[in-house]
């Protein structure tokens, strides 16, 4: 421990010191200690970043990451460009994995429940002894082990360990387990597996409720591939139609949104398939005869009555679907009601009759984000526990006491278990009921591997020393095995989990292309690449012979007690709630509602008006199973008979950032497993205004653009016709002569200045081009910016007061959506525009805001005296003022409680109270590359400097570079016919060019 403390103090000194030191100035007045290493770590040079390849474990997707390590501590998580999934990109949740590592609420060592019922620290040896003693007197079949998705060596270790104990009590539990899809594929294709969906080859995507840009399978890969395939090329433009009662973030990116009657996706898909087969059956494989008779029952006219979608729309969708390289997907909320398997099966048939299976829907690699998990498995285990059938329960990487309907009573059933051992890293709802907590290493501290789909073997390696006295669960299991007598110990030759893992990799070395290489070299090479990526195996898939006998029903839940249908959807920010302990994610505005730090109820404005509800009114949602209360968010992107609430909040534990925040939507859901073994996330509910009200904690201002042309869009029709022109705001007022003269003089002064000092000679002008057609609003850039630039979080009250510090924000505007007018949602990332004629600069009395010779609006924190004139004069509202001391550990507003301060980027100053701050295109990255280029005596190549937002963006929407170089990518994009600059009528000459969003709409 002593050594650990010293190391950390050393880091503190070398890293960014807290604001207090700033006052000292350039003297040795306050003694500050420099603590050297005893033994220098390998590959570490102070001041130079080292990157370690690993695998993100924030969700089951399996993205490759590069972790930037400075002076022995991880400071940023970035995508691994070598990963075939995420290709160097990373979503907000992946970026925030750093705050899992440094979470101030992490358990700092093993804990045991004492006689008084409270948790107290215990030594590892004592904890082991308690488990060994209890296991010694327990029959193997009374031991159960619950894990999350752990596909890989750890999964096999748990199974081998349980087998050695004589137990078969393994349960994998993922709250979003893809049960419906697997069940449907069993029915339609005879395989209990998921295919891989090739968005890269799909020019036409028909999504039946799938939030594939948010949480589904691998959202980063989906986004990358979708953005590419959907873009305008010489052959045309991709098209995406979203079918869901609610317009999710994915739905916002669709060219057309269709909101069918809730739970009728199956009928709609079958009707489309019917038309595809009847009218456009050219691509259909020979065995479609098996479904022909089935499909004939679903003619568009009768389907229209069920779904509420006009028959002509169904015919048009069918025609579009068969004319293009298409892909239909059923997932997300389309897969979460009690007839979701029917929807999934119908969509499977639709893909089959259009000839997509084998092209855009490819079986063989069997990706399984749910790792075979079913909700029914959890329900069965809970029953066994309640019946006293489980004596010892281990829980690792799952939180069933939160992620299951409250009616299931998993938490209470834990009371019937004699010894519950949790491996939680933060005290979660399940660990709160445990007798022993043996905190696991964070994924960034672990040796491990992960196999999200066949042919992909991903590796994790520790990127730094463990922050706390935690132990990797693999090591704990092996240590326990060693103490459990010869019959158990004899089965494991490895002493540590790393040995166990390496032994597993040794046996598959030849299979993974390491033949003829020393194992150490193979291991090192695999580690460096983040794993071994083999081509995905493929398998031809035919229809199951019994497919014709399937019956399809729609969800009938609305017949229940309520008058509205609730959709409880996975949050794109917190997924199933596991991200709620990360302050960056709490402060990240939801891409749709823009609400932070809490829950909300999405209600159509007309429905809300009927109930007398306005934005921010608290709404009590009641189902047959319970109630939940959250403020209303009036959203025109939802059906009038549907309300929606995001899952992920309402934790009773999970640390300071998540606890007692928002509503637990699981309270409202039925605990009864569905036919396919899943959990229905749809529920009949009634609503009532409680009479209380709050200001929504949302940084969004008006949701309408009021003709300002901020986020602009056009249609593909206009692009093709060559008449897609951005709208320019012109000032109606004539410029008075006197002003004209002042401007001329000012321009002359600028020109004179350009010939002296730093301004003389040629310079780059840094600029950004942002392609709104690619931007999905996913907000990965926002979290990347927080991480790179040490941006503090201000908390719910701070956001409510409009004090958020988000240098980069995603603006969201509604267009239409009133009456029968179709709704479109415009999104636009807004950061400092680095104006050529910046309104902020001339008003700064102390020259803290000034123009750099390379075209940035510099912001010099140590000069700033906090007049806020610059912010008042900024038309884009991208300057952020430190109203509180976020960097002072004694301040109530402190944003980096220990050890969260270790996440700080040492290349960026941590700002003090009273200082204005803003985006400077990651000037520290620009200067870093410039220094490097000078030392290497070379020019900077285009694309070499990447801003943090650009680097993270899964859709490649952001391009950074030199606008003065006519050949740079950013120059070429900025010349695009679709390019416009926000509020350019103000003559600010922004350095950011936006390319209008192009929608591939069709006329009915």
């Amino acid at each position, binding site marked *: 421990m*002593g*050594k650990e403390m*010293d190391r950390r103090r*050393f880091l503190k*000194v*070398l890293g*960014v*010191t807290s*604001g207090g*030191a*700033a006052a*000292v*100035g*350039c*003297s*040795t007045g306050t*003694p*500050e*200690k*420099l*603590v*050297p*290493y*005893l*033994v*220098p770590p390998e590959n570490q*040079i*102070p*001041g*130079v970043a080292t990157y370690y390849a690993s695998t993100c474990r924030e969700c089951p997707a399996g993205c490759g990451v590069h972790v930037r390590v400075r002076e022995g501590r991880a400071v940023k998580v970035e995508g691994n460009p070598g990963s075939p999934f995420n290709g160097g990109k990373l979503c907000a949740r992946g970026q925030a994995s750093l705050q899992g590592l440094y979470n101030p609420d992490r358990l700092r060592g093993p804990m045991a429940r004492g006689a008084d019922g409270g948790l107290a620290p215990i030594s590892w040896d004592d904890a082991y002894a308690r488990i060994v003693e209890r296991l010694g007197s327990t029959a193997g079949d009374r031991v159960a082990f619950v894990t999350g998705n752990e596909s890989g060596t750890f999964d096999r270790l748990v199974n081998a360990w349980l087998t050695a104990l004589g137990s078969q009590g393994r349960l994998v539990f993922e709250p979003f387990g893809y049960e419906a899809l697997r069940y449907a594929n069993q029915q339609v294709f005879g395989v209990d597996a998921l295919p891989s969906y090739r968005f890269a080859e799909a020019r036409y995507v028909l999504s039946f409720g799938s939030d594939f840009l948010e949480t589904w399978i691998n959202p980063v890969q989906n986004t990358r591939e979708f953005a590419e395939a959907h873009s305008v090329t010489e052959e045309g433009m991709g098209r995406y139609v979203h079918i869901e009662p609610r317009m999710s973030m994915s739905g916002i990116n669709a060219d057309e949104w269709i909101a069918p009657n809730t739970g009728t996706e199956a009928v709609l898909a079958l009707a489309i398939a019917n038309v595809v087969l009847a009218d456009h059956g050219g691509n259909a494989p020979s065995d479609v005869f098996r479904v022909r008779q089935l499909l004939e029952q679903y003619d568009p006219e009768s389907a229209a009555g069920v779904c509420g979608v006009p028959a002509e729309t169904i015919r048009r969708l069918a025609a579009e679907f068969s004319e293009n390289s298409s892909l239909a997907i059923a997932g997300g909320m389309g897969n979460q009601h009690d007839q979701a398997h029917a929807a999934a099966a119908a969509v499977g048939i639709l893909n089959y009759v259009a000839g997509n299976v084998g092209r855009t829907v490819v079986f063989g690699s069997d990706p399984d984000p749910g790792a075979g998990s079913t909700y029914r498995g959890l329900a069965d285990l809970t029953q066994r526990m309640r019946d006293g059938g489980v004596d010892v329960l281990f829980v690792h990487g799952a939180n069933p006491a939160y992620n299951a309907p409250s009616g299931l009573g998993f938490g209470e059933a834990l009371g019937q278990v004699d010894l519950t051992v949790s491996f939680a890293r933060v005290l979660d709802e399940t660990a709160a009921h445990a007798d022993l907590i043996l905190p696991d290493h964070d994924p960034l501290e672990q040796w491990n591997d992960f196999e999200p789909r066949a042919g992909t073997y991903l590796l994790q390696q520790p990127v730094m020393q463990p922050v706390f006295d935690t132990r990797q669960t693999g090591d704990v299991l092996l240590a326990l095995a060693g103490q459990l007598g010869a019959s158990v110990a004899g089965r494991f030759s490895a002493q540590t989990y790393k040995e166990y893992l390496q032994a597993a990799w040794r046996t598959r070395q030849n299979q993974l292309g390491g033949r003829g290489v020393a194992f150490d070299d193979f291991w090192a090479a695999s580690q460096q690449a983040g794993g071994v990526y083999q081509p995905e195996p493929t398998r031809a898939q035919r229809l199951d012979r019994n497919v014709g006998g399937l019956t399809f029903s729609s969800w009938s839940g609305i017949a229940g007690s309520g008058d509205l249908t609730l959709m409880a959807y996975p949050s794109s920010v917190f997924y199933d709630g596991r991200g709620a302990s990360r302050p960056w994610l709490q402060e990240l505005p939801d891409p749709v509602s823009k609400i932070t730090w809490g829950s909300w109820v999405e209600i159509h404005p007309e429905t809300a008006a009927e109930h007398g509800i306005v934005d921010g009114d608290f709404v009590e949602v009641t189902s047959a199973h319970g109630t939940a209360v959250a403020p209303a968010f009036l959203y025109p992107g939802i059906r009038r008979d549907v309300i929606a609430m995001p899952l992920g909040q309402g934790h009773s534990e999970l640390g300071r950032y998540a606890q007692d925040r928002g509503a637990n939507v699981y309270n409202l859901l039925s605990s009864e497993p569905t036919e396919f073994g899943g959990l229905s996330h749809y529920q009949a509910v009634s609503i009532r205004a409680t009479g209380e009200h709050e200001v929504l904690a949302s940084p969004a201002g008006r949701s309408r653009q009021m003709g300002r042309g901020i986020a602009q869009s056009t249609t593909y029709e206009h692009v093709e016709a060559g008449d897609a022109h951005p709208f320019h705001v012109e000032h109606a007022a004539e410029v008075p002569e006197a002003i004209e003269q002042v401007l001329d003089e000012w321009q002359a002064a600028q020109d004179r200045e350009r010939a002296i*000092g*730093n301004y003389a000679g040629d310079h780059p002008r840094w600029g950004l081009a942002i392609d709104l057609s690619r931007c999905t609003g996913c907000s990965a850039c926002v979290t990347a910016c927080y991480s790179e630039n040490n941006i503090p979080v201000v908390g719910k009250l701070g956001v409510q007061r409009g004090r958020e510090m988000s240098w980069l924000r995603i603006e969201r505007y509604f267009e239409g959506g009133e009456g029968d007018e179709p709704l479109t949602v415009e999104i636009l990332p807004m950061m400092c525009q680095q104006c050529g004629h910046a309104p902020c600069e001339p008003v700064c009395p102390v020259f803290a805001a*000034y123009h*750099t*010779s390379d075209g*940035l609006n*510099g912001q*010099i*924190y*140590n*000069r700033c005296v906090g007049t806020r004139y610059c912010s008042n004069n900024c038309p884009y509202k991208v300057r952020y003022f430190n109203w509180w001391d976020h960097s002072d550990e004694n301040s109530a507003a402190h944003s980096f409680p220990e050890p969260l301060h270790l996440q700080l980027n040492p*290349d*960026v*100053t*941590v700002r003090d109270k009273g200082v204005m701050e803003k985006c*400077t295109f990651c*000037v*520290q990255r620009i*200067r870093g590359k410039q*220094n490097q280029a*000078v*030392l290497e005596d070379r020019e900077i190549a285009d694309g070499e400097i990447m801003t943090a937002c650009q680097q993270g963006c899964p859709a490649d929407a952001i391009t950074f570079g030199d606008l003065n170089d006519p050949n740079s990518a950013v120059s070429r994009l900025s010349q695009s016919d679709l390019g416009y600059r926000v509020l350019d009528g103000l003559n600010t000459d922004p350095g950011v060019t936006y390319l209008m969003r192009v929608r591939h709409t069709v006329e009915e």
Partner: protein
Amino acid sequence: MTGKVLPVAKGIVALALVGVVLYATFHAVQAQQTQTPPERFIAPVDVDTAGLPGPVQPIFYRHDVHAGQYEMDCLYCHYAAEVSSSPGLPSLDACMGCHLLVGGGNPEVAKLREAVNEGRPVEWVEVHKLPPFVHFPHMRHVLSDAEIECQDCHGEIERMPQVYQFASLKMGWCLECHETEEATTDCTACHY
């Protein structure tokens, strides 16, 4: 150059002649050196520590002995100065590279060995400290065309028994040099 090509034989003779001349010169220089050896710096054995400027360090490590008398290169210990913003601080492991064998009788070396044996790092007092809003890239200065020596900013370290802050490290002091050398004076070169 006349542009005439020397025949090979003549060339060899010419080269040999040049060689002889060089050899003679070299010897003459060497002979001169033997006659008047340069004043080699010998650090004083006893120093009045009470009168020394600069903070008192937990171990009386003497730059004048290491960098002065033994002429150790600065980069031997501050190994990162040419590649990184940070000059690098020697690990105790690096100290023990020599002090495993030498200096055993010295009580200050004994402190070092004790710390290493206990696995306890030595907490040096920082002498040259910049405020956190300044980013100073050592490598750009050490390797700059301006041929900056460590001593230009840190003073005659190799004569200091105890290191003290030589320059003010104030921004005006930075800018003086940046202006004479026509280096950038852009604020965001250092402040970000």
